[in-house]
């Protein structure tokens, strides 16, 4: 740098650093008064870092050294839970030394201030850093998985180019991790990267990379195009590109297939940004949200009680604002969570028409199947749990509810039976029902069967109304074949249906009329937020 430039920059450096020291002073004063807090420490760190950078550029070694140590001291302070005032004192002392160093520069560029005393003090406080061993050497053979092999095969068949690209960085290259990321991003625009070596290089930092890395790229571009697109990236010593030919499995010394490598995908361009989350995790969040709501409500109460005595205090308004914000935030959180948990039943119900068609075909009967309420939204957890019961009910309706064509003809009914699955919602409940226009259930036969099976005494039976009598169908004893034929009603699995619905906190109801049909309804409380596991 020319003397002129240096002089000009020195001037700027002195002025600006002086201002920055003032800023740090103010932050230190605040902390001295109010106690340490991470925001202040980070700010001070940022300013010290800035001074260090400038000092480096100007070759002001002493300032560079001192600020570097200050950074470590501040980081240590920031990460420790307990710091006594003596440590903060040291920071103040650093500031004094910095002022002295600046004065030295102003006086003529020779540093006369000895900073070793303060460096010693800092070294005494900050724990020693562990020396990291950087002598990693990357394996020279590129290992690919069996799946990778297939992908390469396919690409070659499609007449695309498959290249093994080897990148070597210059010996003293820095931030190789970031550099590698730049390279990867550029190459992704040229084609598809199957794998890198070392693996997942896009996650690596400088220390993880010894002198370079390699990758396999599928592209329709030429070798020159690849080299050109990386041209603007700094500190690359060498780019070697090997073409991978058809015989790569046997004849390529650089590539080896390993059975132990799993399939991995580098982030593809149009990846669906979704993750799988366990419902229990969402439940946890919801419960915590409820807890927060309780806390907020307590806060509101305290606010109210303070209001009369402190209405003049400006802080009361601020407090109210914060409480309002919290309310809004809660609402939004709830909305987001509901959105995650809720989906329309349509997705799940779409499989039922085909199921009914299949059951009908096997039975030789004629059935028309309709669904209503597809667009209703329900908690995903609940939807999952009612699928099986619905399948049971549909099966029963086809197998036992709807009569064979001949029987329907005899009864003077429409030859094609009708089964309807409907979902309805009111404020408190969701009702999912399966209705058929078939045989219906003969309640008397139910009573007789219950008696003969010893499920109920005559006296108890006389107390039961029709509705309750029908409920006995759900008892395990009723799920046997002979009983089914007796009551010509429902079949296997009714007790399973009831158990599943009860687990969701719901109930099952039956409406029936002989020869007219049966409607079985699952009534589930509409508690959207928590999946109810009892």
């Amino acid at each position, binding site marked *: 740098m020319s003397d002129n430039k240096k002089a000009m920059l020195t001037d700027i450096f002195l002025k600006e650093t002086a201002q920055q020291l003032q800023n740090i002073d103010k932050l230190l004063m605040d902390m001295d008064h109010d106690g340490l807090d991470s925001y202040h420490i980070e700010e001070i760190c940022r300013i010290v870092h800035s001074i260090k950078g400038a000092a480096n*550029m100007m070759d002001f070694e002493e300032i560079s050294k001192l600020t570097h140590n200050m950074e470590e001291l501040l980081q240590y302070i920031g990460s420790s839970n307990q710091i006594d005032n003596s440590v903060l004192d040291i920071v103040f002392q650093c500031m004094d030394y910095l002022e002295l160093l600046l004065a030295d520069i102003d006086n003529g560029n020779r540093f006369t201030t000895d900073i070793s005393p303060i460096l010693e003090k800092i070294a005494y406080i900050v724990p020693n850093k562990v020396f990291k061993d950087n002598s990693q050497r990357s394996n020279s053979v590129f290992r690919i998985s069996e799946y990778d092999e297939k992908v390469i095969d396919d690409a070659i068949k499609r007449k695309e180019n498959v290249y093994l690209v080897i990148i070597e960085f210059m010996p003293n290259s820095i931030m190789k*991790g970031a550099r590698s990321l730049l390279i990867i991003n550029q190459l992704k625009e040229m084609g598809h990267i199957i794998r890198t070596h070392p693996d997942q290089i896009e996650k690596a930092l400088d220390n993880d990379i010894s002198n370079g890395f390699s990758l396999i790229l599928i592209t329709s571009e030429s070798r020159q195009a690849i080299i050109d697109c990386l041209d603007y990236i*700094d500190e690359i010593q060498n780019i070697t590109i090997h073409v991978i030919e058809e015989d790569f499995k046997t004849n390529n010394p650089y590539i080896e297939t390993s059975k132990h490598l799993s399939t991995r995908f580098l982030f593809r361009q149009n990846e669906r940004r979704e993750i799988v989350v366990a419902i229990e995790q969402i439940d946890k969040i919801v419960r915590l949200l409820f807890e927060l709501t309780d806390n907020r409500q307590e806060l509101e109460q305290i606010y109210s009680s303070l209001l009369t005595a402190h209405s003049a205090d400006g802080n009361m308004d601020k407090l109210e604002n914060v409480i309002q914000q919290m309310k809004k935030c809660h609402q939004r959180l709830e909305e987001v969570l509901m959105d995650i948990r809720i989906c329309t039943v349509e997705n799940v119900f779409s499989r039922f028409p085909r199921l009914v068609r299949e059951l009908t075909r096997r039975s030789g009967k004629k059935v028309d199947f309709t669904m209503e309420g597809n667009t209703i939204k329900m908690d995903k957890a609940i939807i999952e749990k009612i699928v099986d019961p619905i399948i049971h009910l549909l099966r029963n309706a086809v197998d036992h509810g709807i009569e064979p064509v001949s029987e329907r003809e005899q009864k003077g009914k429409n030859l094609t039976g009708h089964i309807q699955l409907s979902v309805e919602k009111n404020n408190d409940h969701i009702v999912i029902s399966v209705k058929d226009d078939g045989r219906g259930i003969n309640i008397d036969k139910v009573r007789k069967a219950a008696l003969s099976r010893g499920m109920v005494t005559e006296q108890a039976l006389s107390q039961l109304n029709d509705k309750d009598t029908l409920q006995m169908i759900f008892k395990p004893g009723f799920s046997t074949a002979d009983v089914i034929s007796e009551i010509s009603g429902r079949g296997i699995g009714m007790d399973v249906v009831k158990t599943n619905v009860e687990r969701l906190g719901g109930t099952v109801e039956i409406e029936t009329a002989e020869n007219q049909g049966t409607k079985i309804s699952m009534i589930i409380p509409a508690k959207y937020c928590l999946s109810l596991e009892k």
Partner: protein
Amino acid sequence: MVRVLIVDDTQFIRASLRLMLERHDDIEIVGEADTGTKAVSMYQRLKPDVVTMDISMPNMDGIEAVRRIISADPNAKVCMITSMGKEQVVKESILTGAKGFIVKPFYEDKVVDVLKKLAGKKEEKNT
């Protein structure tokens, strides 16, 4: 002519960069911004070929400024100016859309080289 917008909250760095780049006839410094907010509005107005962006600035940091510039102009060429020990942040800025970076302390040859190459990048692809 490579038109450069310099963004850095430290006057020292802005001055250093200016001194380095001014000497070159084929480089023109079209503006200087000392905050992320100013950087975003100046970018819109001046439409430079390249932006040098300080990674850490108070209020709006470099990454946020990059995000906004890129969302307004996906082809923007932003070069992060960073110091050692900030690799993770540099990577994040690359993922946000920065196309290159320069590590402090920087030297004139390097800076000019990187900025010129970055500016020339798209042009080569188009020919």
